[in-house]
């Protein structure tokens, strides 16, 4: 199964990279999101992945009695997800503003010649 | 054992309902029909599966949780269906050629809606 996830990681990264190489700002954003997902899965996979054993201690017990999923990658991914949400939302709005100002979402048009409006 | 059989039956029906919904969404000729088919069948199917879950876990908490999930689904699914259906209609999404009657179009409802935006 890990192999499939490995494949998935590759595809997510590839797709992300492909999309950020496009000219559309929206695609750039989607690409960034896919890359983020790829990274998350990668972190997830490279920790110890175990099925059906969430890292939650049984209500009646004080410690784990059997094997459980590695909580660290989960915590890391959680943080990463939230952070990329922040970034993404900002990016989306930036995109909106750029579109409102320039009337395009073509990244190649983001080259207003040197100007003095700072 | 009795529980097991019940579980098996309920889950099978549930799963099949969901399957039909999927087949429906794939096969139905226009958007409205697809929408019409899917929402309820899927809700029903999931509802049955939830009942299975409630039966499997002995806790009261799981039972109430399952009921809550079902309740939420019933509360939200039709609303969502209605909203998207309405949007589709306002955007004049084509109906299937076999559609026999279209009151909404007759009423001119559509045009007055559009003016609002």
């Amino acid at each position, binding site marked *: 199964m890990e192999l499939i996830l490995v494949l998935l990681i590759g595809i997510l990264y590839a797709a992300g990279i492909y999309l950020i190489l496009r000219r559309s700002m929206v695609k750039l954003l989607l690409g960034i999101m896919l890359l983020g997902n790829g990274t998350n899965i990668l972190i997830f996979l490279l920790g110890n992945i175990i*099925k*059906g*054993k*969430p890292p*939650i201690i049984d209500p009646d017990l004080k410690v784990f009695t059997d094997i459980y999923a590695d909580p660290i990658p989960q915590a890391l991914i959680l943080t990463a997800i939230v952070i990329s949400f922040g970034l993404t939302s900002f990016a989306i709005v930036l995109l909106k503003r750029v579109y409102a100002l320039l009337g395009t979402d073509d990244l190649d048009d983001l080259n207003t010649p040197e100007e003095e409006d700072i | 054992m009795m529980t*097991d059989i019940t*579980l*098996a039956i309920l*889950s*099978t029906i*549930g*799963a*099949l309902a*969901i*399957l039909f*919904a*999927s*087949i429906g*969404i*794939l096969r139905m000729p226009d*958007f409205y029909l*697809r*929408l019409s088919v*899917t*929402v309820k069948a*899927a*809700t029903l*199917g*999931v509802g049955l*599966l*939830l009942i*299975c*879950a409630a039966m*499997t*876990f002995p*806790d009261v*908490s*799981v039972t109430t*949780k*399952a009921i*809550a*999930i*079902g309740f*939420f*689904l019933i509360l*939200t*699914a039709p*609303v*969502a*269906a209605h*909203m*998207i259906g*309405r*949007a*589709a209609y*306002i*955007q004049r*999404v084509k109906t299937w050629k076999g559609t026999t009657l279209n009151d909404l179009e007759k009423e001119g409802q559509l045009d007055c809606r559009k003016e609002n*935006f």
Partner: protein
Amino acid sequence: MTLTTYFDYVILPILTISVILAFIRLYKGPQIFDRVIALDLIITIGIGIITVYSIRTSQEVFLDIAMILALIAFLGTIAFSFYLEKQSNDD
């Protein structure tokens, strides 16, 4: 055949096939409306899958996820409707 294997080899496959079918609709479209309802259906089936999986692994915590899905999944559909209703040209 135990219940576990039944879930594993009958129910879950049925559900996953359903997801695939729904996804085919999503992929094919043809219109964005079809995709949105396909997405909605996929999430609903997802709730089912999670429920079954929760039974399978005897982990009731997964039901919490199902609950969240049930409560907020429709927000996406609402948002799309909101957008589609106002959109002037067909996307």
